[in-house]
């Protein structure tokens, strides 16, 4: 009897915690604006597109499950190269009142430099596929042309 009550207690507690976490996450997502820039051009403006609340939640989830790159220091200015051609993606997330930065992420050829959300880290994108996910979103949203995507695909791992 005692064991059953204890199980029920922990079960209820877990449910409440889960509801609180997801509820809070949903509330944060709804109040945020996440924008992706595809660094491709030098002179002309780069493709830029915004993520929906569900897409933000998806990216956050992938960022949360990506594994750290062993030995990589997150204390670097950038992981993106200063070359001509595809130079990766940047994501900037802000609260809707533009006062607080909630997302600060760089992605380039399979590596992710996450500054926000969560602790700064260099993550491996190979298992979570955020780079390809965002690029395909950019094509679907007509921010990234099919020609641009074809060129980028040639340099993706």
């Amino acid at each position, binding site marked *: 009897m005692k064991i059953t009550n204890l199980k029920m207690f922990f079960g209820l507690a877990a449910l409440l915690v889960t509801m609180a976490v997801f509820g809070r996450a949903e509330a944060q997502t709804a109040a945020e604006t996440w924008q992706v820039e595809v*660094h491709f051009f030098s002179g002309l403006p780069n493709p830029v597109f915004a993520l929906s609340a569900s897409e933000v939640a998806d990216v956050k989830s992938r960022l949360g499950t990506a594994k750290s790159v062993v030995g990589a220091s997150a204390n670097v200015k950038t992981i993106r190269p*200063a070359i*001509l051609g595809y130079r990766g993606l940047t994501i900037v997330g802000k609260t809707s009142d533009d006062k607080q930065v909630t997302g600060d992420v760089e992605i380039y050829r399979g590596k992710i430099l996450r500054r926000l959300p969560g602790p700064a880290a260099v993550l491996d994108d190979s298992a979570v596929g955020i780079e390809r996910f965002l690029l395909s979103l950019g094509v679907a949203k007509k921010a990234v042309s099919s020609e641009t995507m074809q060129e980028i695909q040639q340099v993706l791992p």
Partner: protein
Amino acid sequence: MPLAPGTQQTNTSGPGQLLTSVFMNNSCGTAASKDHIVSSPGTITDSLTMLYGTFGYATIIEGFGALDFQYLSGTPSTVSTGVGTSSGTVSGGWALAGYGGDSTYTSGPGRMLFRVGANGDARSVIVQSKDHLYVSAGSTTAWWTQVRRTPGSHGLCNQGGVLSAGMDSCVASICTSDSYCCNTSWDAQCVGEVSSICGRSCANYTCGYSSYSPTFWNDGGTVQLHNNCYNYGKNRRTDTFAQVGRASGEEGGTVDVATVTKHAVNDGLISTTLVQGCPEARELIAMVIKPTSPPDWHWYRRDVNNYWTHKPGSSPATNLDNSGHQITSPETADRGAYTVWGGYFCSCSSATQGAGHAVIN
């Protein structure tokens, strides 16, 4: 005094005064009108367009030089009735700055101008007149004003060859006390005298050479993210991700060498070759094109140490090419997909980062 026809207007209380002449000749403006068939007393006013400077004095245009101007006329067309047409073509090396026309009559009530303007492009002029209701013989003549930079001239604030006292009142003042400037060369002392003798400031017009100082451009914030290769190449921070031709009102269009060159020249760049180099302490910059779709353009600049540097879009400025090599020539550097060579240009840069004298946006 370079002038171009401005506004002409007739005033009458009767049926009307119609224009018969509007043209410039030897710095003198002429405008004439007449009534037609029915008497219509009135007046005509003629407002002229000064191409530069204060009326009565020549003026050097900074960053450009002195202005040469000519007033030319086409072959008069004489007809006994109907339409008379006269045309002319702007001389090579000159630009059209204004046009006008003249109609005269030798019989009948008179001939009226009905067309005065460029003939399809800015290189030719056409003027037409005709009689109206009654036969009227007469002639029609096209007039135009054409301009060019006086060969060898340059800005007061730039060192170079001798300037002539007639080019600018400031040159005349300087050469009165320092004849070296008008007889031997316009050296740094002459440039300094623009301020001490003429009381004019050269602060905004003195070109200088940039150095590779990535810390200014690579702040990871506003400067880096909102200034692109064009800002960096011209060493001009605007925080607007400057577009070629935007400042001169011709942004966009086809991305090819001809179009980008045209827009860049409109923005004040001077097309040149590596051999010719740049006059007036201007800095050599270079343009390349990515020809494959989606196309793009890119700029490099040659810093004071003769190495080339660039800034790919919102990425950090760098002195390396796509292969990680220091750039000794943008022609031979690894430029990735930017394979089409666009040419060299001269830019009025500055020794101060982001403070080049280009007008871009």
